[in-house]
């Protein structure tokens, strides 16, 4: 099991954001859906090992995130795109991705090829030598994805990865997601139901800090045949959400 979370709780001061959450994921692309404040980003940050769990256990790729040695081992096999991507504006795209490869301890001999491959997969090869500060929002997002996949992660965590991408880029990104899902476990946090429907093999619906529903994209679409929403997936999402809150 790539991701195994048991009884995970986490609070910001007195606000409980994750509440005894249980989750198991393995292989493929998994979409984390939920309304604002559901706890999606917090869950992804815990999975990215930047937030320690307050309660419960989190084992990723067989490693306990609270164990320092295991956490370090895990991080070498982890890719993470945070919701707000920070970057060094003076770095070129290639330098940024290369720098991240170094931080992820990719063997030095493999770095140039790994960087080229990551940039090619996000279609940024032509802008590889552009400074980060000159990139558009969509390009920055793609550079963020490139750094996340430069170490060929076994567990890839993407928080709102399609924000800022135009429709054409979004379609291309979905294809990339599907390809990544062939060889690793990908967790995508998004509020775009269509992204989940198109690219994800599994869906996790989060609300109030708990997993309310898990299933496949087809099951999501089938869950709301007669509900409100523009697409079957939206109707399914809203129906499941209302059902959970009822």
């Amino acid at each position: 099991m790539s991701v195994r979370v048991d009884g995970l709780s986490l609070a910001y001061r007195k606000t409980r954001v994750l509440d005894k959450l249980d989750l198991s994921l393995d292989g493929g692309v998994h979409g984390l859906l939920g309304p604002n404040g559901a706890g999606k980003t917090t869950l992804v940050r815990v999975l990215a090992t930047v937030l320690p769990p307050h309660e419960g256990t989190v084992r990723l790729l067989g490693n306990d995130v609270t164990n320092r040695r295991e956490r370090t081992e895990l991080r070498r096999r982890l890719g993470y795109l945070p919701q707000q991507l920070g970057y060094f504006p003076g770095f070129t795209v290639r330098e940024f991705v290369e720098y991240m490869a170094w931080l992820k301890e990719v063997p030095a001999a493999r770095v140039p090829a790994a960087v080229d491959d990551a940039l090619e997969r996000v279609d940024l090869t032509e802008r590889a030598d552009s400074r980060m500060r000159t990139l558009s929002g969509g390009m920055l997002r793609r550079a963020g994805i490139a750094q996340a996949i430069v170490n060929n992660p076994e567990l890839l965590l993407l928080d709102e990865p399609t924000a800022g991408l135009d429709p054409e880029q979004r379609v291309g990104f979905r294809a990339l997601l599907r390809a990544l899902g062939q060889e690793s476990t990908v967790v995508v946090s998004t509020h775009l139901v269509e992204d989940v429907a198109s690219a994800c093999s599994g869906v996790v619906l989060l609300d109030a800090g708990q997993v309310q529903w898990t299933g496949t994209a087809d099951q999501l679409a089938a869950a709301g045949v007669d509900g409100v929403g523009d697409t079957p997936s939206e109707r399914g999402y809203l129906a499941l959400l209302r059902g959970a809150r009822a």
Partner: protein
Amino acid sequence: MNRALGIELRRGVGVWASVPLIAAGTAIALAHPRDWAGDWLGWGYYLRIMLIVVGPLVVAVAAWQGGRERRRGLVELLDSTSLSPLRRSLAAYASPAVWASLAFGVVAAAMGAVTATHSTYAGPPILLALSAVAAVVMFAALGFVAGRLLPWRGTAPLLAITTYVAVAATAYTDAPAAYLSPGVQLFFSDSPARWWAPTTAAVFLSVAAAALLLLGPRSRWLSPAALVLAVLLSQPVIRAGEDAFTVDAAAEALVCADGSPQVCLTQRHAGQLPEVAATVQQVLAGLEVAGPINEQRFGEEYLREQGTLNTLYLGADLNGQADLEVVREDAGNLAVQLRCDGPVDPPDDDAYSATFDMAAWVRDRPEPPYSGVLQGRSEQEVLTLIKAVAPAAARCDLKAVQGLLDAP
């Protein structure tokens, strides 16, 4: 590591900061060339003095680099990576540390090139220079760590001001520990003991290590050990204080020129002896029989073993060389001016000013007719008068001087 280090060195703030650092260093060097251009020891000491301004600038640059990750919102992404925070920090620290050291080295080398054309004694005190570079490395470490811990935009300028005040304040304390600070004025004629520069460098590097070790969760416990090492290493410097500096007997040994009167300079300025001696002898030509001049030698103002030696103020031009105009003036003064320990009594004011007129005559050798106390006298009469007055003036015997002036 090498590739990441290369990226940091190319893109970090250090590469840009090196330009103002070189400009600041150059400006400080050009402000007081007399202090360092004339001899190598002055060069070595002046590198330390430059740190009073360069140090705070380095602190500010490094603090800016240290706060970079938080300012750019990168902390979360970087924290998700496997590389140890200490190694990550060291790569980022390299940018201000390496570039600041290089900038300092460039200015030091340029100053050294000037000094090399003028100084004829010894060679550059490399250990003093390396100690100054170690201080730059320390300033960079302290600034970087402060920037990491206080990632506020105002941290860098505030630290620069605080560091400047702290370093400059050491100039006003006589605590022996202050000898670790560049703010302390060192005597340019005294050389440090051999152990002094390497020890101070080791102290600076230990402090830098103590600061940087704080940045690694696992290395943090080693920081106090590095600090203790710095304290231990600083003990000889603190205990010795001023005593670590002694007159370099070889440097202060006299080298004398032929001719009368005999002019001697220290070995440190021996290269300037021919022109200084020629200037003194030209000024004093014709006064060979004047008592104090005839019997004594001339030398530099700060000679410790003065004995019967007349001290001569060499001044310094912009290259730290003897200012021959100053030498001319001082030689004239030595010939005939009153040499009194205390203030001159008002009734003897005429005698006092008369010796000034005679000193000016010796220096300038004007054409007759003369003015003031020398009015109505021929050149030969003036020379006779000066030869008569000189011994009395040297004894500060004002009555005798006045008597000679009043004599028909």
